[in-house]
């Protein structure tokens, strides 16, 4: 156990990462710039949230390791329809407010009053965030690959663990796809849509994704996931 901790400490210092609590001084010096999750107090750069601090060059930021999803422009997210208004839909994606999908952001023309025929309550929609400014979050489904998804299941994980599920250039997702023959669509908000015809494949995918989420902070995750998949197959 002790050895593990030492290992982690060295890996943190190599990338100049450090676990900080709110109000903790990350670094002191006039030339540093506070970024996301950090603020300046006199001479010092202070953590403004709980997370991993990262000093790269003169730029200091705190990477979130917990908490809810915060929408950013360009993110692709998955949500469910929770409201229909006269000119669009409200989508719940597990954030601090609902996203708004306007009828103008749907690739085909929809008559007023026929919105529910296109997207109805409870439908799962893959959409892209195109504006987070002003009043609320606006999303769009105009591009290819976006829109309603049918069948399959939704797996929800902590949004801060999404990068590990995707892997470098999608390597982890491809690994899971190859192992389970499932279609996987990962939303940046931590909702993952899984569909693979057979329910057994989907459950297997869900197990793998949950395994990744549980072990998101460990090194050499790809090998561990490979082992985990092999073990799952052996059990059968």
């Amino acid at each position, binding site marked *: *156990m002790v050895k*593990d*901790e030492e290992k*982690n400490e060295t890996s943190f210092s190599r990338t100049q990462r450090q*676990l900080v*609590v*709110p*109000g*903790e001084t990350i670094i002191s010096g006039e030339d540093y710039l506070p970024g996301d*999750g950090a*603020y300046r*107090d006199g001479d010092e750069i*202070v953590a*403004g*949230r*709980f*997370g991993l601090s990262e000093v790269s060059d003169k730029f200091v930021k705190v990477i*979130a*390791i*917990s*908490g*809810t999803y*915060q929408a950013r422009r360009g993110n692709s997210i998955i949500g469910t329809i929770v409201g229909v208004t006269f000119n669009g839909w409200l989508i719940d994606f597990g954030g*601090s*407010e*609902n996203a708004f999908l306007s009828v103008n952001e749907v690739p085909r023309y929809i008559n007023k009053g026929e919105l529910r025929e296109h997207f109805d309550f409870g439908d799962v929609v893959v959409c892209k965030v195109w504006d987070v400014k002003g009043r609320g979050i606006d999303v769009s489904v105009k591009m290819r690959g976006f829109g309603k998804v049918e069948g399959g299941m939704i797996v929800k994980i902590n949004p*801060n663990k999404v990068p590990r599920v995707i892997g470098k250039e999608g390597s982890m997702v491809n690994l899971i796809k190859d192992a389970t023959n499932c279609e996987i669509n990962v939303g940046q908000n931590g909702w993952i849509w899984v569909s693979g015809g057979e329910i057994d494949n989907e459950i297997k995918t869900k197990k793998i994704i949950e395994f990744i989420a*549980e072990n*998101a*902070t*460990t090194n050499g995750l790809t090998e561990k996931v490979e082992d985990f998949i092999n073990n799952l197959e052996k059990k059968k």
Partner: protein
Amino acid sequence: MTAKKSEKSLYEKRASGRKVDEIRKMNAKVGIVPSADGSAMFETGNTRAIAVVRGPRELHPQHMRNSETGILRVNYGMMPFSVWDRIRPGPSRRSQEISKVAEWALASCIDLKQFPNAVVDVFIQIPQADAGTRVAGINAAAMALADAGIPMKEMVSAIACGKIDKTLVVDVDKDEEDFKDGEGSTDIPMVWTSRTKKIALLQLDGKISPDELKSVLEIGKNACEKIYAVQVESLKKSLEEKNE
């Protein structure tokens, strides 16, 4: 630190055997409720508090929404079995007051400007009570808020100090709170911020002279530093445990 030697206090030795500036044995754990956005447990002696954070999320009822900033909502409650005779569940005059003061204390260190119209709900529950439940609750809530990734300027730590007859003590327990002889007992819960060392909450129930209050604040501040160390340690441990 203690009252003048000429007036002998009726409470010179603490019944629990602790020193006057000794806090009860502390224990804290972060991440006790996996489905929540943030959660923590804080314990001193026989007082135990759990805090769960949900949000930021949509605020209902809508008329409470603030389009400038998110709001904090704290709900404090004691569990029916937390004391020897049953506590009636549901909001009471006392629990509503504590919810409100805890909300004010915690609101001073968090910043919800990023979440307009949203709410951050903090639920504090006391499964086991032996005085000082509001401060234990605030300690747990501060850790849970940090665990939930809420933007915070700093942490807060809380302690209940007291004057038992003429002796100033730290972390009052139930026996001391009920002390009736001489001048009786004065209960002073206080919340200190971790970085700027400001007072986020100060309550006083009983009688105390201005000079004594000043020294009580000083010993409370020192005690809060020890509590802060426990909070930081358990927050950092919560990630290391996941790394194993």
